[in-house]
C-alpha cells in the first residue's frame, strides 16, 4: 500500500466518520461540528486530487459560509445546549434504509459508468480561465449553474433572516 493510498483512506475515514457522527450525535452543536469535519475532509480529498481551486471553494462556501451560518442559527435558538431526544426506532430504521438505498444507488451508477483517464493536459486555474469558464454561455460554460447557485445562496440568506427575525407581538 503506497503512501497516497494511506492518505486516501485516512481522508475517507474522516469524511465517513464525520458524517456518521453528525447524524448520530444528539447535541445539535456537536452535530454541526462533525459536519464541519466531514466537509473539511471532502475539501482535503480535492486537495489530494490536486484539484485545488475546487477545494478552496469548498472550504470558502461550505466551511466558512454554510457551517458558520448553521452554527450561528443554532446560537439563536435557545436550546442549543440541550440533548435531543432519542429518535423513535422506526424513524431510525427508516433513515438507515434510506441512506443505504442512496448508497446503493450511487454505487450502482458509479459502477456502470466507465471511467477513463483523460489524456488532456490539466487546465491551469488562472484567473482568466476561471472567469471565462464561469461566465461562458457555450455548451460547457458555467453561467447557468453559477447563477442558480447564487440564487440558492440568496434564498438561504433570506431564510436565515426570516428564521432569526423576531416577530414583535403587540402587547
Amino acid at each position: 500500500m503506497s503512501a497516497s493510498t494511506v492518505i486516501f483512506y485516512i481522508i475517507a475515514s474522516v469524511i465517513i466518520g464525520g458524517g456518521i457522527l453528525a447524524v448520530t450525535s444528539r447535541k445539535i452543536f456537536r452535530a454541526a461540528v462533525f459536519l464541519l469535519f466531514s466537509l473539511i475532509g471532502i475539501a482535503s480529498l480535492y486537495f489530494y486530487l490536486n484539484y485545488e481551486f475546487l477545494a478552496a471553494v469548498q472550504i470558502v462556501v461550505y466551511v466558512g459560509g454554510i457551517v458558520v451560518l448553521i452554527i450561528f442559527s443554532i446560537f439563536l435558538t435557545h436550546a442549543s445546549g440541550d440533548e435531543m431526544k432519542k429518535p423513535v426506532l422506526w424513524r431510525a430504521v427508516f433513515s438507515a434504509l434510506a441512506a443505504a438505498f442512496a448508497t446503493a444507488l450511487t454505487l450502482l451508477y458509479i459502477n456502470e459508468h466507465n471511467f477513463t483517464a483523460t489524456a488532456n493536459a490539466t487546465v491551469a486555474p488562472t484567473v482568466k480561465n476561471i472567469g471565462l469558464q464561469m461566465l461562458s454561455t457555450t455548451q460547457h460554460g458555467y453561467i447557468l449553474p453559477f447563477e442558480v447557485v447564487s440564487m440558492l445562496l440568496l434564498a438561504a440568506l433570506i431564510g436565515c433572516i426570516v428564521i432569526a427575525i423576531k416577530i414583535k407581538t403587540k402587547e
Partner: protein
Amino acid sequence: MHTWLKNAIPNATGLLITEMVITGVILLVFLILLAFFLGYMERKVAAFMEIRLGPNRVGPKGTLQIVADTLKLLFKEGFTPDAADKFLFNLAPGIIITTALLAIAPVAFARDFQIWDINIGVLYISSVSSMAVIGILMAGWSSSNKYSLIGAMRSGAQIVSYELSIGLSLISIVILSGSLSLNDIVESQANGWWILKGHIPVVIAFVIFIIASTAEINRAPFDLVEADQELTGGFNTEYAGMKFAMFLMAEYINLFVVSAVAATIFLGGWMPFHLGNLTGFNHIMDFIPSSIWFFGKTFFIIFIIMQFRWTFPRLRIDQLLNLEWKYLLPISMVNVLLATLMAIMGWHF
C-alpha cells in the same frame, strides 16, 4: 532538499513522511519562536508607546520574559469548567491554532523558499483563514459562559462580514496581476511593488486590507470578541494554562500571516526595492538577501497593526458592522471595478 532526500530515501512512502515531518518540525519551531518574538515585540512596542520601559527583568533587556510567561502558563492548571462541553472545549484551541498554521503554507519567505507552491495561493489563504471563526465559535459556545457566548456571537458577525472586504481587496490585486498564485504575484512586482506603482485602487485596497485583516484576527480596535472591559475576555474567558496560551499563539501567528500576505501582495514579498533604471542602486538592493526584504516588510506591517492596538479605543459592535457594510465594502466594490477597468484598458497612473 527534495532531491537530496529522494536519493537518501528510495521508498516513496518514507520520503513523503520524512518530508512532512521535517517541514512540520521546522515550521513549528519557527512559529513558536515567532510567537515568542512577537509577544516580546508587542510588549516592548506597547511599553515604549506608553512611555514605559516594558519587560526588562528576565534575560538581557527582558528578552526571556516570554519564556518565563510560557513556563508559567505551562504549570498552570488546564482548567475545564464543569458545565462545559468538554470535547469541544478542548478541541477549540487546537482548531484555532491549526487554521492559523495552515494559512502559512503558501507564503514565500524568500526567493524560491516556500512550503507549498499552490497555484491558487490567494484563494487558499482566504479560504483557510475563514475557518478560524469556527474555532472561536466552538470555544465561545462550549465554555458555557454567558460572556463567552456573547463573544462568540460577535465573532460570527464580525469575521464573516470582514472576510468580504479582505477578499475584495485581494481580488483587485489578483485582477491586476492576473494570477492567483502568490509566486506569480510576487514576480509581477519585479519592476516595482504594487503599492508604489502609482495605482490608486491598489493603495485603497491596501488600506482596506490592513483594516479588515486587523478585524479578522480580532486585534484592537476590533477586539470585540475578547473585549476585556465588556466581556471579561470573551470567548477565552474560561481558558487557562496552555489552552489559553494556544489562543495567544494563534493570535500572533495570525498576525504574522496577515502581515506576510499583505507584504507579499502589496509590498512585493521578497522582491527587493528597485528604482526605475538606476542599475547601481538596484544592484545594491539585490545584494540584501530576499528573506530580509520579506521579513522587513512583514514586520513593518506587524508594527503598524500593533500601533493600532496601542493607540485606538475599541469600536462598538454596531459601529464595527457599520464600518464594514457602509464604508469598507462599498468602497472595495467600487475599487474592484476601478481595478478591473484599469486592467482592461491598460491605464497607468
